[in-house]
């Protein structure tokens, strides 16, 4: 630390706690309480980065979240490093490592700096214009453009940090812990409201807390002293929850807001272990008060971007809060009174101020009068036309403005400086207000956009609503808060505020220079290197909308989102096009206000917590028996059970052979199950399924197909009649929740007269499905007293039996085409019954099979899977399932749609079978089917939906949807693939056991 730069005895920086940090490989020191920026400045380091496009040297410009230049790479760990961190926001900790970005080989000597000299060749839209042709070269250009683009480097390893989410509710949310927010919090708390107060800095108090001059007084006390007492009061207030280091990211409708709290970023790395790094608060507030303050504007002149050029308010904060001088030879450049407070701070700290340049003709306010009395040279009606100094400002060139303020006259004056503090007035932080849907209006007096109309229960106060002087801020905040909260009296009603009042105002969006604009570089957006020239070029080239100008010039599109740049861009567009700024409008303010890490957004929902997953009661058995799993909806379903290093193909071949030759067992617990009861249950089924249910007897099962009202197949499954008014419906695994919703919808809204009750029982029952020629023998071993004869227990029937104390529902139904029984038991007995089947089936080589084998077995029989062989565009007729449509029923869901002009077309896509000419060739699911591949464009007739190699048939089989498929049986078609064309023949959809003999064993 340079002794000349650090002023001691500042209450916010603890000089007893020295901290070391490393910047670009060099070890430096700062104190607890410093930001990285204040620590760098105390070491006389301004140059911290290079600009994005021209690689110009850039220094720390601000003291807050609006910082465009001082964005650094923090840390050097592959997993923990973080790019684009604003040095002005990160608190210094012991061992902090940081590096400059966007420069090579170093920030002091950067090869890319050549772009600065090439800048006449790099206007706005350069990349769009230059790399357009030849179009085929884009891939080559892109490689180099991407290489030279970008700022910091993303971490390359998984983020090891822990993040958290939390919901919060409050009566009043106050965003911003400056003086107006604190007053509002106190008024609300005194009215017994539950208040949540958010402040993005470490400490409450905003900018008034370090305001040490004697001109501003509250209740006859120094304003900072008065504020400290208020903060003490608020810290002990039980109605107020305070969250510091918490920045509001997004303000959504209905007063739903997201805020991010930093919990460990200010700690040394060793102190962070096992602590949550950041927490995202999801806040629902009855009322919201926005007191986010304002940020200072720069001024736009030639070479206004050199290291050492800073906002005047930042220079003041570095002196008064951190005790750091930003320079030893200072010059101020302003268009308003607030910079004179910086002048006073410089003077009071014994820091040399060489001159003040003010574009106004004069000012007679109290603070300016005070500065005049100190004998500081003030150049009224003057502007800066140029600056010098490559890596740090050395000189400014000053000239007089003409009467109109659009040109400069007279002699050039050169002034020495190593720090130039600039102020162009203030911009209220209306980001949150507009994010929430609020509409702005333009205030011509201060050239600012201020909050106007909103639909929400919210209020903006303080400088966030455009009050900049202390008396206005306090008195209006008190008045507006009382009105907003409908309070008659507050403890602040007799407040007495004294402060200097600004009388003269002058604003020039683009200051004139002695050189033509084309020869100057007046920067608007420092981070993206866009200048006033670029804005004018965009306007000349025909861009009119501010949104288009923004994108063409990239103004406001950096990591700072143009917090400093946007107002001047608007101002210059308005001036150039002779438009009122209020009519021009602003670009859209989008969340987040400052960047969020992905970790904060996802919170705990990572890895195994990414989504819930459901396991069947038999899951552990599958795991123990080496099952591979597939995700079906949220379910983990056993996919196949490889043995001794078997491939998936070999496993599926073995499993399906066993099921056809002796016996197999499938965990079918995931199928959706809906318990239907009520006197109108039968009528209800008649209305929701395409087929007839009236004659179904108790103890019988029936397959049903459910359509959407548009006639397209929606779901299918077997429903069993358990009792006179009691049914158990099964649905597809993935469709269960949707089917339940749909049935409830019809019952509640279309047919409330039906006496029907639905209960989802998917999770209440577990299902083991035993199939194969030996299935009957196995079931007989388990249920010795159960009559399994075809007469007593035929296909598509059901019996309820007991196994000890366990109630078992046994259904004889088949999805494989084999003799098959499904045993349903209460879920807690699922694993028991499964193991019972395995034990009983041992002598018959009972083979557990997964979903893949199930798919193969059903495809051999031509049974569809809704969602695989159908896609929401298939009617039952398209599926060649005309048999399931009742001709007798007057109505059912989707019936009318089955004879719309579109659904009765003959040339719709229809489900068919496909056999490859080479029986060993397996088609790819999703492959396209064509008749003639030479005639271009090739006419696509359909695609393969299911394809397997059948070990029983010893050939490849497939299902497909094919235009006019029903007419094409026996036709030869082609399936073109990348390297070859496969010849296929259209076939029947049933490949095995066309007479359905196997279901009887």
């Amino acid at each position, binding site marked *: 630390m340079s002794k000349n730069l650090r002023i001691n005895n500042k209450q916010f920086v603890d000089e007893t706690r020295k901290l070391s940090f490393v910047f670009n490989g060099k070890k430096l020191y700062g104190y607890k309480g410093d930001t990285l920026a204040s620590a760098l400045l105390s070491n006389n380091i301004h140059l911290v980065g290079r600009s994005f496009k021209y690689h110009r040297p850039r220094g720390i410009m601000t003291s807050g979240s609006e910082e465009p230049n001082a964005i650094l790479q923090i840390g050097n760990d592959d997993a923990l490093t973080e790019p684009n961190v604003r040095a002005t926001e990160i608190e210094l900790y012991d061992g902090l490592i940081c590096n400059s970005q966007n420069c090579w080989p170093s920030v002091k000597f950067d090869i890319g700096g050549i772009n600065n000299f090439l800048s006449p060749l790099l206007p706005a839209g350069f990349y769009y214009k230059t790399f357009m042709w030849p179009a085929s070269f884009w891939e080559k250009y892109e490689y180099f453009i991407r290489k030279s683009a970008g700022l910091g480097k993303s971490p390359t390893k998984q983020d090891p940090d822990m993040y958290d989410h939390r919901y919060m509710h409050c009566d009043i949310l106050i965003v911003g812990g400056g003086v107006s927010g604190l007053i509002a919090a106190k008024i609300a708390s005194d009215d017994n409201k539950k208040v949540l107060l958010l402040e993005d800095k470490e400490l409450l108090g905003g900018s008034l807390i370090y305001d040490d001059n004697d001109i501003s007084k509250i209740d006859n006390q120094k304003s900072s002293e008065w504020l400290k007492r208020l903060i003490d009061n608020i810290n002990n207030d039980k109605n107020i929850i305070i969250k510091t280091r918490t920045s509001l990211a997004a303000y*959504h*409708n*209905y007063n*739903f807001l997201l805020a991010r709290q930093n919990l460990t970023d200010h700690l040394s790395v060793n102190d962070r272990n096992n602590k949550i790094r950041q927490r995202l608060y999801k806040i*629902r507030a009855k009322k919201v008060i926005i007191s986010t303050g304002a940020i200072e504007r720069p001024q736009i002149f030639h070479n206004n971007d050199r290291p050492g050029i800073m906002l005047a308010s930042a220079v003041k904060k570095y002196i008064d809060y951190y005790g750091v001088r930003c320079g030893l030879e200072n010059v101020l450049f302003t268009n308003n009174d607030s910079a004179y407070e910086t002048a006073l701070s410089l003077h009071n700290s014994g820091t040399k101020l060489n001159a003040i340049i003010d574009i106004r003709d004069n000012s007679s306010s109290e603070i300016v009068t005070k500065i005049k009395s100190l004998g500081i040279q003030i150049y009224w009606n003057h502007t800066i036309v140029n600056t010098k100094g490559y890596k740090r400002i050395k000189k400014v060139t000053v000239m007089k403005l003409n009467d109109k303020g659009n040109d400069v006259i007279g002699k050039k004056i050169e002034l020495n400086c190593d720090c130039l503090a600039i102020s162009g007035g203030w911009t209220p932080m209306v980001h949150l207000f507009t994010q929430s*849907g609020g509409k702005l209006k333009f205030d011509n007096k201060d050239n600012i956009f201020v909050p106007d109309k909103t*639909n929400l229960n919210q209020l903006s106060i303080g400088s966030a609503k455009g009050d900049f002087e202390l008396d206005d801020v306090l008195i209006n905040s008190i008045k507006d808060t009382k009105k907003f909260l409908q309070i008659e009296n507050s403890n602040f009603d007799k407040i007495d505020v004294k402060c200097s009042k600004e009388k003269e105002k002058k604003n020039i969006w683009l200051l004139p220079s002695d050189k033509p604009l084309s020869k100057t570089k007046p920067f608007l957006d420092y981070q993206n290197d866009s200048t006033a020239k670029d804005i004018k070029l965009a306007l000349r080239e025909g861009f009119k909308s501010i949104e288009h100008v923004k994108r063409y010039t990239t103004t406001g599109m950096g990591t700072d989102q143009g917090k400093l740049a946007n107002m001047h861009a608007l101002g210059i567009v308005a001036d150039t096009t002779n438009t009122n700024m209020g009519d021009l409008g602003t670009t859209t303010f989008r969340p987040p206000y400052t960047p969020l890490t992905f970790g904060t957004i996802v919170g705990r929902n990572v890895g195994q917590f990414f989504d819930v997953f459901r396991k069947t009661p038999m899951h552990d058995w599958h795991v123990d028996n080496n099952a591979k799993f597939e995700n079906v909806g949220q379910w983990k379903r056993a996919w196949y059970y490889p043995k001794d290093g078997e491939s998936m193909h070999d496993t599926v071949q073995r499993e399906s052979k066993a099921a056809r030759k002796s016996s197999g067992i499938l965990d079918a617990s995931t199928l959706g199950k809906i318990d239907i009861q009520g006197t109108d249950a039968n009528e209800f089924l008649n209305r929701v399924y395409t087929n007839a249910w009236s004659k179904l007897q108790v103890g019988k099962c029936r397959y049903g197909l459910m359509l959407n*009202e*548009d006639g397209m197949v929606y779901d299918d499954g077997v429903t069993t009649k358990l009792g006179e008014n009691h049914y158990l419906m099964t649905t597809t695994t993935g469709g269960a929740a949707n089917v339940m*919703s749909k049935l*409830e*919808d019809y019952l*509640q*809204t*279309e047919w*409330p007269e039906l006496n029907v009750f639905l209960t989802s029982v998917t999770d209440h029952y577990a299902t083991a499905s035993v199939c194969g020629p030996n299935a009957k023998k196995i079931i007989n071993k388990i249920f010795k007293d159960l009559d399994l004869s075809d007469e007593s227990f035929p296909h598509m029937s059901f019996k309820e039996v007991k196994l000890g104390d366990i109630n078992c529902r046994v259904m004889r139904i088949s999805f494989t085409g084999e003799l098959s029984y499904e045993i349903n038991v209460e879920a807690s007995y699922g694993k028991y019954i499964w193991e019972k089947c395995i034990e009983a089936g041992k002598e018959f080589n009972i083979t557990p099979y997964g979903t893949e084998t199930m798919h193969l077995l059903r495809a051999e029989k031509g049974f569809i899977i809704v969602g695989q062989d159908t896609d929401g565009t298939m009617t039952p007729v398209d599926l060649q399932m005309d048999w399931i449509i009742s001709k007798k029923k*007057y*109505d059912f869901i989707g*019936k*009318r*749609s089955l004879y*719309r*002009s579109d659904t009765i077309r003959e040339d719709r896509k229809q489900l068919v079978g496909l056999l490859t000419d080479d029986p060993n060739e397996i088609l790819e699911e999703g492959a396209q089917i064509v008749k003639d591949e030479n005639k271009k464009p090739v006419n696509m007739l359909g695609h393969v939906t299911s394809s397997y190699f059948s070990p029983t048939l010893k050939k490849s089989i497939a299902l497909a949807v094919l235009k006019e498929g029903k007419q094409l049986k026996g036709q030869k078609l082609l399936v073109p693939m990348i390297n070859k064309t496969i010849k296929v023949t259209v076939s029947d959809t049933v490949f095995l056991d066309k007479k359905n003999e196997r279901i009887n064993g």
Partner: protein
Amino acid sequence: MFLINCPYCGERDQSEFISGGEAHIARPKQPTELNDDQWAEYLFMRKNIKGVQFERWNHAHGCRKWFNVARDTSNDKIEKVYKMGEQPPKL
């Protein structure tokens, strides 16, 4: 994320609900009597207006009841919540 005042459970977060599109479109009692155009009118035609729109919502992660909502699509303000079978409010 807005709040919906479920007529059966009270005010809850939007994430507990699913939207069911335009309200007050009754399924025709005699679909077979309708020609293609009339059936298509029921099946496909939905309003999408800027302003107050009557919608069906379902408290899917709550009581699972369907009900009606009058919502201003321009700002998501909910003017009224009312039960199935009740008449829409006059606005």
